[in-house]
């Protein structure tokens, strides 16, 4: 995966993203549904935060409030010290469905952001080529998204976000619709990018194993209304040196942590 | 004013100036006279066998008016009413008296300026020989077709009424002439009230005439084809109207003096053979222009003729049929007849 943040590495430990008492309710009157309640969560630049929890726990709502797609009913979300006020190119977003633009070619999708900013064709061609080459999509640049496989489509969606050099990448179950092998490959690619660039990532996932394996932090949420149950530091993402995912995932420490997170989710689902 | 003396004094110069001005003035007079006529006239017409087709076919209207004529083909008098109400037709040639009575009752701004023909036997009840219809009551339980809203429709209903037949006893169907002939050929209908050329096709395909027109005329069911002019047009361009009526009279003369020559021209216009055209034309009573001004027909300015009463009684009948809302006073129909242009055309 390509470099995204220009090697811009922020000082670890400093608060980069902050949720302060965030609550979100949908509907009004008798039809009021609280989706999130009292969410307070800070993380630093370079953190890889994975959010897990049962269905309907507001994971997606959490991400959308950071992306600026919805305004919290209470509290504030801020990034880099500035409160979030609507969506922007500083936050790249990837959904479970790639949501590519079928009327644009692969190259057109990749260069969508620069095109919006009015960059010349020549100027954006270089960035697009660099990004497409790293994910192996360069030779497909003149094809249309529907001619690609699911994994390639998702890679293209990630490229479309990374091309904008976002400060943070928000991903909502990006690998949920992929087969096991592709999924594992994509996890590795994402991990490589993150390690190389030190970019901040917020990943929402159903898979506890994925969260524990990729995240520096795993946030467990409970459902109705969505609350944070616990935030757990996970050591495996930062392990230095060569490692194989098979090995890591069978480490006793990994299994123990995975079981702990799972039981938290079970508990929160039962209450 | 051919030469101007260079040494001329003021007086002669003044004279010259006056003369030039006069010449210029004189020069404008013919142009003014032409400007008094319209540049463009919209005329609605039927494709039919009538002397009007001679005037159209020979381009006489264009010649006498010096205007661009926009010929608008219509299929029914109702279309002329609509078009005049919309202001897109100045002159309607051949409109039936029934739609005209309806139009005048509804306040459509036009005037009857000419009786093209008294329809007489040209529109007549035609019955299928095989249906064995000998007296009016034989029609009970039979299907009779006619184009609704036409003069034929008016006379058919008059026929049923004067013979005490209700529309529950006789099925009256609304068919355009073309569809009517097709239905006849298939044997779908037993009788029809219609005009030429459809009528002759029915007769050729196993039909015979059931004579109704003389008794109906006596009972006041007079029907005629007319020329109507948009009131505003008639007021603005009386001269043009007179010229057009003159052309119409000339066309009628061609038919009365040289029927064969007329039939040839008319046949070409109507898309039928000269023989058919001639046979059709012979059935109409073309009311000579002088006769039109008699009290029996249109009358003269200040002395309205009895045709206004014909129109009013037609309107009464239409109101009974709910085709129109109400019947206005006789005065409305009298005002709806303008005989001045025809009178001038005959001078």
């Amino acid at each position, binding site marked *: 995966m390509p470099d995204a943040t220009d090697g811009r590495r922020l000082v670890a430990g400093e608060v980069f993203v902050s949720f302060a008492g965030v609550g979100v309710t949908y509907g009004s009157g008798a039809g009021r549904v609280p989706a999130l309640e009292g969410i307070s969560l800070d993380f630093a630049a370079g953190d890889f935060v994975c959010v897990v929890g049962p269905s309907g726990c507001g994971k997606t709502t959490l991400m959308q409030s950071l992306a600026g797609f919805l305004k919290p009913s209470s509290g504030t979300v801020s990034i880099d010290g500035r409160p979030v006020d609507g969506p922007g*190119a500083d936050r790249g977003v990837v959904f479970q469905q790639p949501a590519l*633009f079928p009327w644009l070619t692969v190259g057109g999708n990749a260069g969508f952001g620069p095109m*919006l900013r009015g960059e010349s064709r020549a100027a954006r061609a270089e960035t697009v080529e660099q990004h497409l080459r790293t994910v192996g999509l360069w030779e497909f640049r003149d094809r249309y998204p529907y001619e690609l496989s699911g994994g390639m489509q998702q890679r293209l*969606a990630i490229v479309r976000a990374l091309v904008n050099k976002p400060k943070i990448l*928000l991903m909502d179950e990006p690998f949920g619709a992929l087969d096991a092998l592709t999924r594992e490959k994509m996890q590795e690619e994402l991990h490589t990018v993150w390690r190389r660039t030190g970019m901040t990532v917020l990943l929402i996932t159903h898979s506890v194993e994925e969260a524990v394996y990729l995240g520096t932090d795993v946030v467990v949420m409970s459902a109705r209304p969505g609350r944070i149950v616990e935030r757990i530091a996970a050591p495996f993402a930062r392990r230095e040196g060569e490692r194989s995912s098979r090995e890591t995932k069978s480490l006793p420490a990994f299994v123990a942590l995975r079981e702990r997170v799972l039981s938290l989710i079970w508990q929160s689902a039962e209450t | 004013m051919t030469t101007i003396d260079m040494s001329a004094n003021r007086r002669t110069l003044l004279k010259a100036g006056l003369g030039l001005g006069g010449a210029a003035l004189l020069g404008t007079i013919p142009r003014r006279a032409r400007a008094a006529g319209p540049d463009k006239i919209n005329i609605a017409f039927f494709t039919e066998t009538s002397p009007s087709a001679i005037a159209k076919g020979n381009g006489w209207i264009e010649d006498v008016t010096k205007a661009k004529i926009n010929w608008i083909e219509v299929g029914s008098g109702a279309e002329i009413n*609509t078009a005049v109400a919309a202001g897109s037709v100045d002159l309607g040639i051949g409109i039936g008296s029934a739609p005209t009575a309806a139009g005048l009752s509804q306040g459509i701004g036009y005037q009857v300026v000419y009786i093209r023909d008294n329809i007489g036997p040209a529109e007549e009840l035609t019955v299928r020989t095989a249906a064995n219809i000998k007296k009016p009551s034989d029609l009970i339980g039979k299907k009779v077709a006619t184009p609704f809203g036409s003069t034929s429709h008016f006379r058919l209903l008059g026929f049923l009424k004067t013979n005490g037949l209700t529309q529950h006893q006789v099925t009256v169907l609304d068919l355009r002439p073309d569809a009517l002939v097709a239905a006849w*050929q298939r044997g779908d209908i037993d009788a029809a009230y219609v005009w030429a050329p459809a009528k002759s096709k029915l007769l050729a395909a196993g039909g015979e005439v059931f004579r109704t027109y003389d008794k109906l005329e006596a009972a006041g069911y007079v029907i005629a084809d007319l020329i109507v002019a948009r009131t505003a047009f008639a007021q603005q361009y009386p001269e043009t109207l007179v010229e057009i009526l003159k052309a119409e009279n000339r066309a009628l003369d061609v038919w009365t003096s040289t029927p064969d020559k007329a039939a040839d021209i008319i046949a070409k216009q109507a898309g039928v053979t000269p023989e058919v055209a001639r046979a059709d034309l012979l059935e109409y009573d073309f009311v000579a222009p002088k006769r039109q001004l008699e009290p029996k027909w249109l009358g003269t300015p200040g002395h309205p003729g009895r045709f206004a009463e014909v129109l009013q009684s037609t309107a009464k009948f239409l109101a009974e049929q709910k085709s129109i809302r109400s019947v206005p006073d006789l005065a409305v129909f009298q005002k709806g007849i303008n005989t001045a242009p025809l009178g001038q055309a005959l001078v």
Partner: protein
Amino acid sequence: MTDSRSYRWLSVLSVAGFFGAWYVVNAAHLAPANLLPSMQEVWAALLDILHNGYRGTTLWENAAATLGRCLGGFVLAAIVGVPLGLWMGRSPVLAASIDYILQFMRPLPPLSYLILLILWLGTGDTSKVALLFLAAFPTIAMAAMAGVRGVNRQRIQAALACGATRAQVFRHVVLPSCLPMTMTGLRIALAVTFSTVVAAELMTASNGLGWMVFSASQFLRTDIVLLGVLILGVLGMALSRALLSLDLWLVHWRGRD
């Protein structure tokens, strides 16, 4: 595709069979000649009106008049209908104020208000084009509106997250997203316009293929009527094929998204 092409000979055969049956019916005198003109007569009529025209108007003039009215009304309806539909899709208030009028107008048979249009707009081409406009316009506007309402939310969000402004979202996401629905609406509307163009020529027309057919039926020239039907059918097929090709070219992702 190869599958359907391999059966093309069957299509040719069935069309040939149709003409063969027509020939046999006439040759064997199975139908009265005045009910069904023979193929030779229709062919002769075609040659005749190609050379001499029909009642003073050439076939090309008639075809051009009909096509001109049809396309005039259709293009006008598209120019007004598409933007209005898009706007309605964006603005619920506008939609609420207009939607019921379109709903009411859409199923109305155009012939029912033809007489009113002639009354209001006169006998010229204005009333005819207006008729076609009114016949096509509700379908187009409602299709465009449905297109806007059906835009994938995530695509909009993805564009916003690439830094798109509201105007850019509209231009680069909403507009192309509406294209499939709008094109479908345009295709239905063209079919409606084409079948209405003949109705428009029913009254106070003096050229056009519809006029030719009506005028010919007035004189019971069944051969010209049949010829007119054949020409109109082929012309309609060509028009809808053309728009379908445009659709498939523009909306290349149709059915694959």
